[in-house]
């Protein structure tokens, strides 16, 4: 279950954004990704989730182990909270959605159509999805956007519980979650532009 990344280079829209990135994420650990806007946090998480190919480098231990939560939550407004969760549960072949509902205090809202939730409640539903995937490595892109203080605590508790069960998490965030975690600052890995008359194979 250890995620191992070595000498990774990634690109967005054809332009390299990060390079020379290496880290390991053992079980029961959290790694926080830090860096200014536009440095490439989202791109990194998408690459690890297998949504886009890396430019170079190796990723080991990621395949079918990562549950990815993006900026968007993939929530259908006309389905109820339960229906939304149950759908993802059956896609990932798990059955129990009650733990997830309780962990994020969604039980009261279980039968509301998701479109009638407030932004913070929607986000909680999106995070509850991680619990029903049953996957060991969670990769979360700014999970606390539009959550209030109370919900952030709830979220940190869930993460701790997940770590206790041998899971691990990779979190891109700007705020302090109160977790005992290693921090990876991405700024030093910013890709350096190639000299512009190096047309070998490319256009730059």
């Amino acid at each position, binding site marked *: 279950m250890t995620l191992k990344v070595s000498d990774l280079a990634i690109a967005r829209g054809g*332009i390299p*954004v990060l390079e020379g990135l290496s880290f390991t994420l053992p079980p029961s650990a959290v790694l926080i990704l830090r860096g200014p806007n536009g440095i490439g946090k989202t791109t990194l998480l998408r690459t690890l989730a297998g949504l886009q190919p890396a430019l170079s480098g190796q990723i080991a231990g990621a395949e079918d182990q990562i549950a990815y939560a993006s900026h968007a939550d993939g929530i259908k407004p006309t389905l109820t909270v339960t229906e939304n969760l149950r759908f993802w549960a059956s896609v990932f072949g798990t059955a129990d959605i009650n733990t997830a509902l309780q962990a994020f205090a969604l039980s009261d809202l279980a039968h509301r159509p998701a479109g009638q939730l407030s932004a913070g409640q929607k986000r909680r539903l999106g995070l509850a999805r991680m619990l029903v995937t049953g996957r060991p490595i969670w990769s979360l892109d700014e999970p606390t956007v539009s959550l209030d203080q109370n919900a952030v605590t709830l979220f940190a508790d869930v993460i701790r519980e997940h770590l206790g069960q041998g899971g691990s998490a990779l979190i891109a965030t700007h705020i302090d979650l109160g977790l005992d975690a290693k921090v990876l600052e991405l700024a030093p890995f910013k890709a350096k532009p190639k000299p512009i008359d190096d047309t070998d*194979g490319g*256009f*730059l």
Partner: protein
Amino acid sequence: MTIAAKANSVWEYANPKKFLATSERVLPFFWVTSALCVGIGLIWGFFFTPDDYKQGSTVKIIYLHVPSALMAINCWLMMLATSLIWLIRRHHVSALAARAAAPVGIVMTLIALATGAIWGQPMWGTWWAWDPRLTSFLILFLFYLGYVALWQAIDDPDTAADLTSILCLVGSVFAILSRYAVNFWNQGLHQGASVMRAGAITGTDTEEKVSNVFFYPLLFCIIGFVLLFIALVLYRTGTEIRARRMRALLARERVGG
């Protein structure tokens, strides 16, 4: 030189810079020879060939109609080949060549359609009939349009190259399917293939042969159109490469490189 080395040397031209340098060198040759061949063929055909006993002077249209029709089809085949190369070996120049060729194919298709329609008026008494060959040409035209529109609609060049390549593959299969479907659906008026039959060329075929009087200027035109096509595609691929490099530079400037 071993075969492997030779194969490697071919792929060297997939480097944009190398491609630009080489194409710059050979382009003048293609421009001049294509202009010569097309010029000679058309002038010979237009001024110095007799009228056909059945078709009268309209037979002169063949010098434009047949070469453009051939090139319209061959252009698609070339795009298919370069798309495959892009999908398999990921050479950018290959994808850009397909992009550069498509508008040329459109114009060739248009010429074939226009000359055919104009020719049809005196010969068949109608501008247009739903003859299988005509119909499948029209469908080819639509494929070209969709292909170009897709290229233009997508911002990211690599994504666009991938998507258009797959469209070209799937489109080719469906183009062939339509050809058969159309054949089944309507039997036609159009001339069968005769120029390209061996018998016609050697002059031993008795029926429907194109006599040598018409054949030699036609040959010039066909060769000229092929050369012109090569010249245009080389030149336009160069343009696409430069546009692509410009894009990359601008994008890099924006991210503050």
